[in-house]
């Protein structure tokens, strides 16, 4: 295998190995670990991701793609960003939570109308009533009769920090 295939080249996408044992690029997450992460952290069933492939472009930036293509592939985009694996605590992306967050059954924090509007503006807020895990949570609110994911929150010391990307932040109506 050439050096280009073994290392993380910023300009190309490499398919994630099936399991850690199949790993050829140093520190690259495996498909198995990604699917286990969503299952263990948020209770999203592995079957949700059965039809998708996972890719890395640049260190720790994981993308999810509906089909398959040859690896590595040098193009501008492949599916949607889904996960950051560079830090010790993996962080799902805002897009991933908007698209797949409704499958989650744990580490989901339900926000009131006021809290959801604040969260969508990108504001941090005190939330001492949460007595679950610290770390990344899926924040939801009620809309059109369903609980709908608003984004990814980081919960630390009684505070819920909004990680809604700047380009997605909006001043929303309090429903």
């Amino acid at each position, binding site marked *: 295998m050439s050096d280009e295939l073994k290392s993380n080249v910023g300009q190309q996408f490499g398919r994630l190995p099936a399991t850690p044992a199949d790993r050829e690029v140093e520190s690259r997450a495996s498909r198995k670990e990604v699917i286990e992460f969503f299952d263990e952290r948020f209770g999203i069933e592995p079957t949700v991701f059965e*039809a*998708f492939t996972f890719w890395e472009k640049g260190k720790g930036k994981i993308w*999810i*793609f*509906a*089909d398959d*293509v*040859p690896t590595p*592939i*040098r*193009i*501008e*985009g*492949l*599916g*949607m*960003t889904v996960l950051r694996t560079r830090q010790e605590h993996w962080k799902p992306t805002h*897009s991933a939570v*908007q*698209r797949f967050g409704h499958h989650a059954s744990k580490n989901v924090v339900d926000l009131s109308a006021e809290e959801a509007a604040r969260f*969508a503006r990108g504001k941090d807020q005190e939330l001492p009533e949460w007595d679950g895990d610290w770390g990344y949570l899926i924040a939801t609110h009620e*809309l*059109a*009769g*369903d609980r*709908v*994911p*608003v984004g990814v929150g980081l919960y630390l010391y009684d505070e819920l920090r909004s990680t809604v990307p700047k*380009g*997605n932040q*909006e*001043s*929303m*109506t309090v*429903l």
Partner: protein
Amino acid sequence: MNPLERYAPLVDDREAFFAACERPLPSVVRVNTINATPERAKRALDEEGLGYEDVEWNPQLLRLDERGPGTSWPYFHGWLHGQEEVSALPAIALDPQPGEKVWDSCAAPGSKTTQLSAMMDDTGIVVGNDNNLGRLSALRHNAERLGVTNLAVTKQDGRNFSLKPFGFDAFDRAIVDAPCSCEGTIRKNPDTLDQWTLNHVHSVAAIQKGILSRAIQATRPGGTVVYSTCTFAPEENEAVVDHVLETEDCDVVAFDCPLESVSGVTEWEDETYDDRVEKTHRIYPHLNDTGGFYCAKLEVTA
């Protein structure tokens, strides 16, 4: 002189045509069916007290009472995307199916591209190409916001697009929503015509011919290619289709246009075009209270 004067002989009702070109466009959104059904999106708009009306010819399009959907919850959640009514037409003419391989040669900023993905239930592959990095970033942003996972984004010159990275030889369908003189967007961008020159029309027509030719070559025999512009100029519409009928293996296919339209023209100034261009569609702003548009459906024959 107003460049639109050159098209007055082509329209049935000159007065209605010019009056429509002066009016601002209605604000229309498409429901992104990857994330929500039209019923769900409407319930969310109702909850926020935002008014809308159905677009008769397509259940996924809604005309909003207020301008711009940007700060509504269903927009925040990627359930809605602002898209001009008439620009939903080429994807409908293309009729992509789940699991297929589809090429969008001029994809950014992605309204039609993400519509293709939704029509395919976000399966198979849509290769969204554009040659401008800034516009590609808008395409990427829109696709992320709408939860599209079947899109591969490339930055190539559409005229000599290479499929090599993808490991397959041909697409099932292709859409060429070509860069054009944009006369039909006058209602959205009133200064569009300030830069208008006949030279530009001719130079952009050469690019359109190149991209459409490549799309036909890159599509499998029996596959479908849709060509569309937002301009009235026959040089950029029927003349481009006439060109590929002569130079590439393809034929014009009739399709039911859900909007009121008129046939493509076979004569323009000193030119005559293949009679088959009569099966293509011209849409003038006054016919459906939309922007101006042109759309042709082709079948690849070999």
